[in-house]
């Protein structure tokens, strides 16, 4: 990577896979994850002189990533739909088919959560970060993280519970 300062290059090399994984689990879309990490690392590069001296540069990069994922998700999906509606529709259909084939109910239910709740769950249960660490990334109090996690889990559980109609058909 010419012209990037060496330690930025090292930072990118060491963390790009992890950031892509985080972005993929939050967005649940490989293409969107790639776009997101690119935007995130551009911001990191622009601010590198300050980020490099931070105690936890990766935490700051994650904050940028998660903020992008949360705040830009609506605009990004709308932009895609506006640009190439047919392609966007085809992609959406293929994703649905692929997801249905996985029969992974939890994964399917996660898609129905808003981006912020998905991000909180990824940070808490994939990265195993404490509520304080998640709060630092999301710039909110640990108590807010705790309540968001509880709400997200409750909603997820609600999505996974069978509806009364499904229960009746099971009993027959």
């Amino acid at each position, binding site marked *: *990577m*010419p*012209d*990037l300062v060496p330690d930025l290059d090292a930072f*990118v*090399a060491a963390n*790009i*896979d992890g950031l*892509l*994984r985080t972005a*993929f*689990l939050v967005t649940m879309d*490989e293409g969107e*994850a*790639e776009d997101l*990490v*690119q*935007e995130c*690392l*551009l*911001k990191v*590069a*622009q*601010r*590198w*002189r*300050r980020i*490099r*001296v*931070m*105690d936890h540069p990766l935490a700051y990069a994650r904050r940028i990533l998660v903020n*992008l994922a*949360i*705040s*830009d*998700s*609506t*605009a*990004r999906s709308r*932009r895609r739909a506006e640009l190439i509606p047919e392609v966007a529709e085809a992609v959406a259909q293929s994703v649905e088919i692929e997801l249905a084939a996985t029969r*992974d109910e*939890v*994964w399917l239910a*996660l898609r129905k959560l808003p981006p*912020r709740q998905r991000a909180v*769950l*990824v940070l808490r*249960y*994939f990265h195993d970060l404490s509520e304080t660490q998640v709060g630092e990334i999301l*710039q909110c109090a640990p108590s807010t993280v705790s309540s968001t996690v509880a709400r997200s*889990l409750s909603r*997820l*559980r609600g999505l996974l519970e069978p509806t009364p109609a499904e229960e009746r058909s099971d009993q027959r």
Partner: protein
Amino acid sequence: MNELFEEQLRETYAEHDASYDPGDAAERVRARLADTATRQRRPTLPKVGLRTRAWLGLGAAVTACGLALVVLLTGNRPGAISPERRVVALTAAYVTGSGRGVLHLEATTSSTLNGKSGSFVVDNWSDEGPPYDYWVGSGTKSGKLSIETTVVGNTITTYQADWNQISIGNSRTGPVPGVAVDPLFSSIVMLVSPGHGIRLPVPTRSHTVDSPKIFKEMLAALAKEPGVTVNDNATLNGMPAIRFRSARRGSDLYVEPGTDRPLEFTLKGTVSHKGKSWTRSITTRFTTYESLPSGSLHMPNLITEYPHALVPAWDRKYWNKTVGSRP
């Protein structure tokens, strides 16, 4: 029950993480980053990303809209604080910051003076508490950095790219110390200043106008000014926003519903100097307005950063006297 469910969630993440191979994506992103880096001389003020930032602001406004609705609905209960006062208080608290960490703001400012217009990008990092050090860089929208300024203690240092020159001075002396070189502040202070009727807090350092601190306090003062009308249902570029309008001053301040993050500040008025007056309008769009932990401000040394820059004799003398000899 909870533990079982949490375990199931962990397994789901682990399973999908294992099935995801970021290898090709990582290569593509790195290649695009390298390509961008070769096109940018300095990463501080990017050519790319301005549209992205604008989209970011709009997206964030949508996300925050729901939260704002909750705030406003609860504010309508009998006996509760009025929605306007609540919004004003929240906005003032947001723009003023915690008074501890580091305030980081990025903005694009467009200014029109007698029909001629220009715009620049500004990136500003400032200590929210003592010693109130700050760094500000401003440049063109194409990414060219034209002015970079640091204030460390009593020393203000400015690098001007057009002249390849470094000026050094005392930030506590002069008629309006520290202000003339802060493009974001100076562009606005010409219209809104203590002389123009806004009561600003007394600066914390005697004879020092601490630009970033005063700037944010000026925003808060504008939000709290008597006679300001608050529109909770305003839109900014088609997205929901809260607008504070001062008809008397010709200013509009837009903040993001729910978070109270400043989005845009516009000002229209007349600038007078030595009996002449000009009409002027300024629009400052914030792409970033965040509080970071203290210690996030890494101050560059402009003298060593631009070793071939010219340093006028007087400035060199001041530097040698106060800081030490040039490296």
